[in-house]
């Protein structure tokens, strides 16, 4: 299962009440657990084969989700560099993006140490409450 497919699945369940989904295909299993009241979604992406007993590599990615509706900005201003890029190492409390709603700038901080694996939203695009913004690999 590649990152694009995982993103598509996240998009499908967003805006729904689904809090947990498990998909098994060709010996791969994807488990997405959404904490609809919290700030982080836990996404297990185990390369786990259900049919063989190969060594298991559990790579758990955690999504940073939007706490409110608004516009997503990756930098403090159009001229400044993005807060993070794919591959950036972030520490708990670091600002990762801004969600602007009716001219109120909300600086979104990460709640754990991690590495940015994927940026899911384009700069300037609108986001919904609970929408996943970044995928991070916790350190």
């Amino acid at each position, binding site marked *: 299962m590649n990152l694009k497919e995982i993103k598509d699945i996240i998009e499908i369940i967003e805006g729904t009440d689904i809090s947990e989904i498990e998909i098994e295909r060709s010996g791969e299993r994807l488990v997405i657990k959404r904490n609809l009241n919290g700030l982080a979604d836990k996404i297990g992406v185990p390369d786990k084969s259900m049919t063989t007993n190969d060594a298991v590599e559990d790579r758990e990615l955690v999504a940073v989700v939007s*706490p409110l509706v*608004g*516009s997503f900005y990756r930098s403090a*201003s*159009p001229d400044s560099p993005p807060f993070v890029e794919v591959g950036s190492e972030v520490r708990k409390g670091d600002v990762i993006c801004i969600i602007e*709603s*009716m*001219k109120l700038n*909300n*600086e979104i901080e990460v709640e754990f140490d991690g590495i940015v694996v994927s940026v899911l939203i384009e700069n300037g695009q609108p986001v919904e409450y609970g929408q996943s913004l970044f995928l991070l690999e916790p350190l």
Partner: protein
Amino acid sequence: MMEKFSFFTKGRLNTKVVGKEVVFYEETDSTNDDAYNLAMNGVDEGWVVIARNQRKGKGSRGRVWTSPGGQNIYLSVVLRPKVSTEKASLLTILATLAVAETINDYISKGVSIKWPNDVLVSEKKISGILLEMGIDRNKDRFFIVGIGINVNSTKLEIPTVVSDLATSLYLEIGYAVSIKDVLFKLLYRLDHWYGKYNTYGFEEIIERFRAQCATIGKTVSVTVGESLIEGLALGVDEDGFLLVEDEDSVVKKVISGHLKSEV
């Protein structure tokens, strides 16, 4: 004659929250940054930073708020409301209403609000409002309400690029007014509406805002990211969002973006 703003630092305001403590600077980079730093260090809500001159006044999305010295109002207020994150942007509506009413004290006709945060006089912008949210060292959430009002700016002090779009109280009424007086009225208005919110919620604030909001009833186009929403602005909902009906009669909620309206 230069008015002494230190007047406000001596506890002379009889407000409940806003302006209980006032920090005054002759010059600073940005009152929003100063208030943000104070809030990070845990000051109570109601602290206000006022400056006579800003070197790097903050506008929205990193733009500069032009801040000629001594002529205008630049202030930032620390608030710590127990508001849910989804409703927090209604603080923009509260601040905009307070500014519009303050301007109304000097100009009776032609004052209107362009959703969500611009106060216009004869279709020209007279103020700027910028809100920021942060988490302080005690893990408590705070808000900074930054307000700039063009009070006594002359035509020369308004950058030519915006001279058709911006104005000041002086340019509209033809004489200079006391900045101290405008500050007084503004701080009391902010305190009044903040008190209302704390007791009764946002309902009356939204009603008053709607009554002054000239965007409602106009054809608008809003750029949100790469998409464009065009249609008739029907109203402002209970979250403060603008409701726009497009040509397919679909009503869309506008939460942010760049708004243009037909006069």
